[in-house]
Every structure is written in structure tokens, then in C-alpha cells.
């Protein structure tokens, strides 16, 4: 009897540290952020007051905020489908258990474990006049250019870096999905007349990978909407504001202008956007495994 009472005492003790951290640094901030968004809280002034929906009204009338949302949307809409497709392709190739293929897979994965700041710095060089992009383009007679200061090219350049880095990450999700497909399904399909590799892919692999596609798309989308590191380090939101994204806007208002209330309102709008997008995706993509 006393052992059981003791055990539940231990249970509370065991979950205590995790709950304290999560309540203090995740739940409390989420509510506090919502509260702050209705104030004019500024780090530099002692007093603050309630301003109702003023922050939200100002945000929705600030062309820079709308622009930053537009860039975030373009970035997400471009990056997520392509990186998911590339990750699927990589998964198909690198799911083999051959030793050489596994070694190559380890190399493909290196971008996924490398700091986004280091990746950004290397790609600043790659897009510079003496970098790889220009060495390749010069073969086609294009004259060297620093692509990160060309307004129309900067955002696509950053998007390509994101696809490069994150596709390697999501490859692992597809490898796990592919390896969980029972071999006998392929044998059965052979008997049923699925002769070509394409038919086996189309009617067995792809349908059974729907859960992996779902995970890669939803997580890719949630991550992409929070794009910060690449555009902050590679271009600092520029040239002009060509690569300025929602999180850069929040960061600037919070930490350059100290307008915490206003930044909190912007972060709350970003949260709503992420929430709605993941709900929509769930509605359209989520499927149960049926084997």
C-alpha cells in the first residue's frame, strides 16, 4: 500500500521539472503574448496601457508587414512542395541497404546537421560573383552577378538553399516510410500483373507513403512559415525588403525598436496563420494507414 502511494509521489516529482519549464517558457509566454498584443508595452518606457486592437489595426495597414507576409507565403509555397518531392526522390534512392548507398546517404545528410548560419555564410560565397552559381552560369554566357543583391533573384536564391538543406532532413522520414512497407505486397503485385517499376511505385509505394508525405508537408510548412535564419544571415531581409519575412519583422520590432506589444501582436498573427494552415493541411492530407 505504502509502495503505491510512494510511487505516485515519485510520479509527480518526476514530471515536475518538465512541467515547470513548459508552463513557464511555453504556455505562460503564449498567453502573455496574447495579453501584450493589446498593449503599447515598450521596453524603454516604464508605463504601458491598453490600446485595444490598435496594434492589429496598424499591422494590417502596414505595407511592410503585409509584404513580409507575402514573402513568407511565396517562400513557403515554393519551398514545401519542392523539398517534399526532392525528399521523396532521395528516400527512394537512399532506402537501399547497400553499404555504399548508406555511405552516400550519410553525406547527403550533412546539410541537415549543419548550423543554418554556417550554411548561409557558405551560400553567400556560392551566390557571389566568384562562386559556383556563376561558374555554372558562365558556361551559358550569363555574366557574373552577386545574386543575393539582385532583388528578383534574392528570394529564389534563399528558397533554393532551404530546399537543399531541408530535403536531406525529410529524406529520413521517407526512408522510414519506405522501409516499413511489407515486401510481400510487392511480390503480390507482381502476380497481379504490376510488371514495371513505375506501376509498383504508383500503386503500392506511393499510396503507402501518404503518412510520410503528410508529416513532411505539415512539418515543412510549419518550419517554412517561421523562416528567419537564412534570410537574416544571407541578405538581412534585403536587398531593400525583398527577402524580409514575418519573423524578421517580429524580431526587428521587438529587439531593434523595443516595441514588445506591437511585436507580440505580429507574432500572434503569425501563430494564427500557422495554426490555420496546419488545420487545412490536416483536413486535406491526413489519412490513416490501411494495411
Amino acid at each position, binding site marked *: 500500500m505504502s509502495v503505491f502511494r510512494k*510511487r*505516485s509521489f*515519485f*510520479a509527480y516529482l*518526476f*514530471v515536475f*521539472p*518538465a*512541467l515547470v*519549464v*513548459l508552463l*513557464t*517558457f*511555453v*504556455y*505562460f*509566454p*503564449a498567453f*502573455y503574448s496574447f495579453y*501584450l498584443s493589446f498593449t503599447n508595452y515598450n521596453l524603454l518606457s516604464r508605463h504601458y496601457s491598453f490600446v485595444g486592437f490598435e496594434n492589429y489595426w496598424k499591422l494590417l495597414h502596414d505595407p511592410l508587414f503585409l509584404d513580409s507576409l507575402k514573402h513568407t507565403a511565396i517562400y513557403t509555397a515554393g519551398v514545401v512542395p519542392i523539398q517534399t518531392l526532392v525528399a521523396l526522390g532521395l528516400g527512394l*534512392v537512399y532506402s*537501399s541497404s*547497400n553499404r*555504399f*548507398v548508406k555511405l*552516400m*546517404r*550519410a*553525406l547527403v545528410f*550533412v546539410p541537415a*546537421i*549543419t*548550423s*543554418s548560419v*554556417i*550554411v548561409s*555564410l*557558405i*551560400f*553567400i*560565397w556560392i551566390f*557571389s560573383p566568384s562562386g*559556383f552559381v556563376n*561558374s555554372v552560369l558562365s558556361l551559358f554566357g550569363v555574366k557574373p552577378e552577386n545574386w543575393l543583391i539582385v532583388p528578383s533573384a534574392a528570394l529564389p536564391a534563399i528558397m533554393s538553399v532551404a530546399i537543399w538543406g531541408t530535403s536531406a532532413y525529410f529524406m*529520413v522520414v521517407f526512408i*522510414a516510410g519506405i522501409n516499413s512497407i511489407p515486401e510481400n505486397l510487392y511480390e503480390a503485385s507482381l502476380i497481379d500483373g504490376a510488371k514495371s517499376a513505375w506501376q509498383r511505385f504508383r500503386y503500392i509505394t506511393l499510396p503507402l507513403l501518404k503518412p510520410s508525405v503528410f*508529416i*513532411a508537408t505539415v*512539418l515543412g510548412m*510549419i*518550419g517554412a512559415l*517561421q523562416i528567419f*535564419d537564412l534570410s537574416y*544571415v544571407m541578405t538581412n531581409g534585403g536587398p531593400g525588403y525583398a527577402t524580409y519575412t514575418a519573423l524578421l519583422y*517580429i*524580431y526587428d520590432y521587438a529587439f531593434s525598436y523595443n516595441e*514588445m506589444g506591437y*511585436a507580440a501582436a505580429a507574432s500572434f498573427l*503569425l*501563430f494564427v496563420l500557422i495554426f490555420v494552415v496546419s488545420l487545412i493541411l490536416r483536413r486535406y492530407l491526413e489519412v490513416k494507414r490501411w494495411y
Partner: protein
Amino acid sequence: MKPKNLALLVLSFVLAIPYVIPFYWMVLASFRDAAMSQQPILYPFIQTLSNYVYVIKTSGFLTWYANSLLISVVTTALSVFISALSGYAFSRISFALRDQLFLLVLGTLMIPFPITIVPNFILILKLHWVNTYQGIIVPSLAFVVGIFLMREFFKTIPYELEEAAILDGATPFNAFLKVSLPLAKPALSAVAIYTFISVWNNFLWPLIVAQTPNMFTIPVGFFKTANGQAIEWNYLTAATTLAIIPTILVYAIFQRYFIKGIALTGIKR
């Protein structure tokens, strides 16, 4: 060898090239002088080691390296322990409100990081934790995916092992520490490696908290050095090459656990 297999080998090699080349160039450039290091040259030769000497001696690089190591190791150790404790309680012990509390833990996955940065900064300002190690470390100590992974793993360890220990006179805490925890090594490793690499690479939160160069982590220090200035590629590539060594080592040694961890959860920190 069958032609189909040969095609697979060739394809796996060709597809790996774009993922490796930037790092290959980075390492080569770090061994060249200022003018040569900017060139897109891919044949290997060592021109000089002086970039490494310069980086280690001149910049704040060693301080940032030490900060990154300290923060990553401490965060990883504490976070793994916290995950193991709560994962264990959630899977093994039945207590009032258990399922509700577990839902509370999982619910944090719905709250994206950006919404927490403003209030968390105000919080650590009030705690006088700005520009301190604890300001960087403490907010990221509870790793929800880690808790989830540990909970799933402890479910697979037979409870009879602990019962036997308790019958032999062990306290429940000792049964956890001496019996179940050692058996959970694969899950602990997955959580540890995952945490280490993501903390080592973390940028935005240390950027907000660390305000003076002596508190910078590697990503923050690199960013502040490169930002708005002409980059000296020979020094930068030497520094970045040194900076990716820990993650590459951890990944190479524990690759199997790492990939399994992502495959199980699919979730980025």
C-alpha cells in the same frame, strides 16, 4: 553485379554531389590564402595552415567555441534527464491527472516558437538572466519530443524487471535509476544526439540573449563577425570547418540512433 544495382550506386553517388560540394569547397578554401580562397577551385591542395592559426589566436573564436560546448553539453545532459524522468512517469506509474498532464505536455507542440520570443525575453529580463548562460539554457530544457520518445521506449521494457528489484528491497527511484534507465540507452542516445546537434546549431534564441562577445555562441559570433562586412573567406572557412567538427563527430559515431530518432518522431526541435 547486376546493371540495376550498378545504376543505383551511380545514382546515389551523383545525387550526393550537390549536398557535399559546398562543404568540400569550404574545407579546401580554409587551406588557401586570401586571394585563392575565393576561387571556385575543387582540386585539393594545401597551401597554408595560417588561417587556422589566425582564427584560433586572433578572434573570439575559442571563447565562442567554449560557450557553445558548455551550453550544448549542459542543455543536453539536463534535458535528457528531464525527458527520461517524465517519460518514465508517464509510461510506468499510474497517478491522478496523468493523461491530462501528458496532453498538457503534447499541447506545447501547437505553440510555435515565434510567439514565445517576446514574452520570454521580458521574462529573462525580469529574472536578470539577459546575457547569461542560464538565460540561453533554461527555456529549452524541456524537449517534448524527447519526453514522448522516452515514454514510448519505457513501455517496451518489461515491468517485471523492476518489480523484482523492488521485491529485493530497492526503492522505486533506485529501480528506475539502476534497472530501467540503463535499458533505455538507445532512446536516451537518440534524444541526446538530437538535442546536442540542435542546441549547437541554435541561432535565434542565443542571438537574443547573448549581448556581449564573451557570451556569443558559434552561430551568433559568426553572424556578428560577417554581418555588414566584407567576408575574409580564408579565415571564415577555417572557422566554419572547425565549427562543424563536433556535430559531424557526434553524427558519425551515433548515426544509427540519430536517424532512428527522427524516423520515429519526424519532428524538428
